[in-house]
């Protein structure tokens, strides 16, 4: 592990801050990714194991065509929207947290 840079010993240069940042950001990203990946990767499996269900007609569309050709897009938009709102809020909280530490004299 590299030694801390002697010029910077305050909170915003600390391991603690970095670890928190990465952990929270990664968690948010992974949760959002998992939700759409589940849908995306489940669909071929459903097509494989339940072909008759997936071929049910709805207004002329086979069900699986309706999902893949139309309904997937609003799902992607929803997940993006949620992620963006949350990540901007997260970033603001992180910045605020850092400033609080600076105001408290960088006591850790």
């Amino acid at each position: 592990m590299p030694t801390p840079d002697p010029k910077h010993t305050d909170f915003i240069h600390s391991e603690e801050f970095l670890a928190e940042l990465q952990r929270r950001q990664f968690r948010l990203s992974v949760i959002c990714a998992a939700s759409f990946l589940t849908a995306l990767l489940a669909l071929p499996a459903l097509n494989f194991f339940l072909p008759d269900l997936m071929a049910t007609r709805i207004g002329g569309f086979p069900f699986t065509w309706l999902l893949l050709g139309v309904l997937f897009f609003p799902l992607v938009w929803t997940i993006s929207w949620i992620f963006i709102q949350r990540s901007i809020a997260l970033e603001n909280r992180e910045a605020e947290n850092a400033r609080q530490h600076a105001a408290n004299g960088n006591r850790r």
Partner: protein
Amino acid sequence: MIAAVDLWIFACSFITVGATLAMGYWAAGKAKTASDFFVAGRGVSVGWNASAISGEYLSAASFMGVAGTVMSSGYDALWYPVCYACGYLFLLLFIAGPLRRFGAYTIPDFAEGRFDSPMFRKIAVIFVLFIGFFYTMPQMKGAGTTLAYVFKEISWFGATGLPYWVGVLVVGAVITLNVAIGGMKGITLVQAVQYWLKMFAISAPIFVLVALYGGYGTHLGKNGIGPAPTNAIATAQAPAEQGGTTVVRAALPAAAPDDATWINPFGRLSSKAAKAAKLSATESRPYALLYTYSLIIALVCGTAGLPHILVRFYTNPDGVAAKRTTMWVMILIGVFYLFPPVFGVLGRNLMPALYEGAGSKGTDKVVLELPRVLNGTWGSILSGITCAGAFAAFMSTFSGLLVSMTGALAHDVYGRILAPASTPAQRMQMFKWCAFGVGGLATVLGCFVEKLEINFMVGQAFAIAAASYFPLLFMSVWWRGMTMKGAATGMLAGGVCALSAVVLTNLSDLKKVDLTAFWVEHPLVRILCEQPAIWCVPLAITLMVVVSKLTRAEIPADIRMKMLVLHAPEALGLKQEYVRDQEGH
């Protein structure tokens, strides 16, 4: 020579091309500094940038290719537009924010900055070029196909119709010139306008055709119900009433897939190798499932690794703007992608003669040709509109690619490696020379790919990006244990394997190399060559981890600072501090 051209189609095409060039020249006057040239002055607003990214993203593959592949292969082709959109989401979730905070001009810049390695920059640049050329080839196919369509009735040295390669040459020359003069700033404006043109061009004809011939669901409803029409049936099938509109299917030629294969998953596209190996329908399905998953991985991870898309993140004034831009991009491209499959579906029912064509006369031109089903002036006008859209599509993507590839050569190879003491003026000059070189080569390569499907070629570009850039970016951003050797090994191994696999597939499909017997014996190998992502991406990531752990002594000393720059809010100013520290050494 000009007399036998449809006037509406020609006029729409000519106006689009003319306007593109005019905007390019106009913006050229405004591109003064080298910075302007490379990253559009870093001051583009969310609205413009979102439209521009969307415009650049929607290439000939999206505009023409998706419809063509849906028509030729049915359900399986739907993965393309969905994964193109999902890939963007992946980019947003994992890569966009940190990369933007890091603030390099290009991906090779990031590669060098993250690992303190000019050597790594060189390796990264090689991939920009390879992926770039695989992406320019389908655009050139789009160009050749569209020009051949516009001028299909002219007489050309004794033959009828403009040859495919002439179209490629003309478009290649025009775009190369545009880029050499205007750089990227010219492109931003052009791309934004062209998104809206493409959106109009893909949707307006659909609304008209649907009103007259029946809706999306109605047409799908006619497939797979009752016996499919074949050559043996001379008259059209009896029309069915549904919601007041009559849907009449024209006879399907022998070359067309039957209804069941077309409308169901695991159809022509994913089962091709298995069918060639004479496997039964039940035996083919697991192979087709594997194919599908490999395709999904390539397209989703590949988007996150496309160099010419990533650069657009640097044209936003700040990180929050960059994220908002991405949200808009996803809406703009998502709405767009609802329409091309409808062309494919309508094309199957209304214009199945396209199944008999090959290359530039096949299903890849359904978007251009389908409005002609109306006959008369309105058919010509609508077809002219889709032609204008096609021009906008391949012109905007080709120019975007050209800028990022030329930028890599001029900024990274020349500016950083060959001649670090060069002045900005010299670099701008180099940019122009490189533009001619890259544009020229891309045009020549484009002449050879008439027989390959547009979407298929783009999928290959994505597969290479997925196996090289995606693991590099993802791992470098989130794992501090990466070393330069680990990153380079993984990227090279994944990228070269994917590249070799797709080149082999293309050479075989273009009949330059005869592997038919081999593919029949080994359908699994064929699938893994045609869609290499499922093994190349894990290979790249594994090598990155293993080699990084073996060389852990080489982790950069200021790794904590680097990771902070990638992840800390921009407001804290860590990036500026980092830059000052670097300059102090």
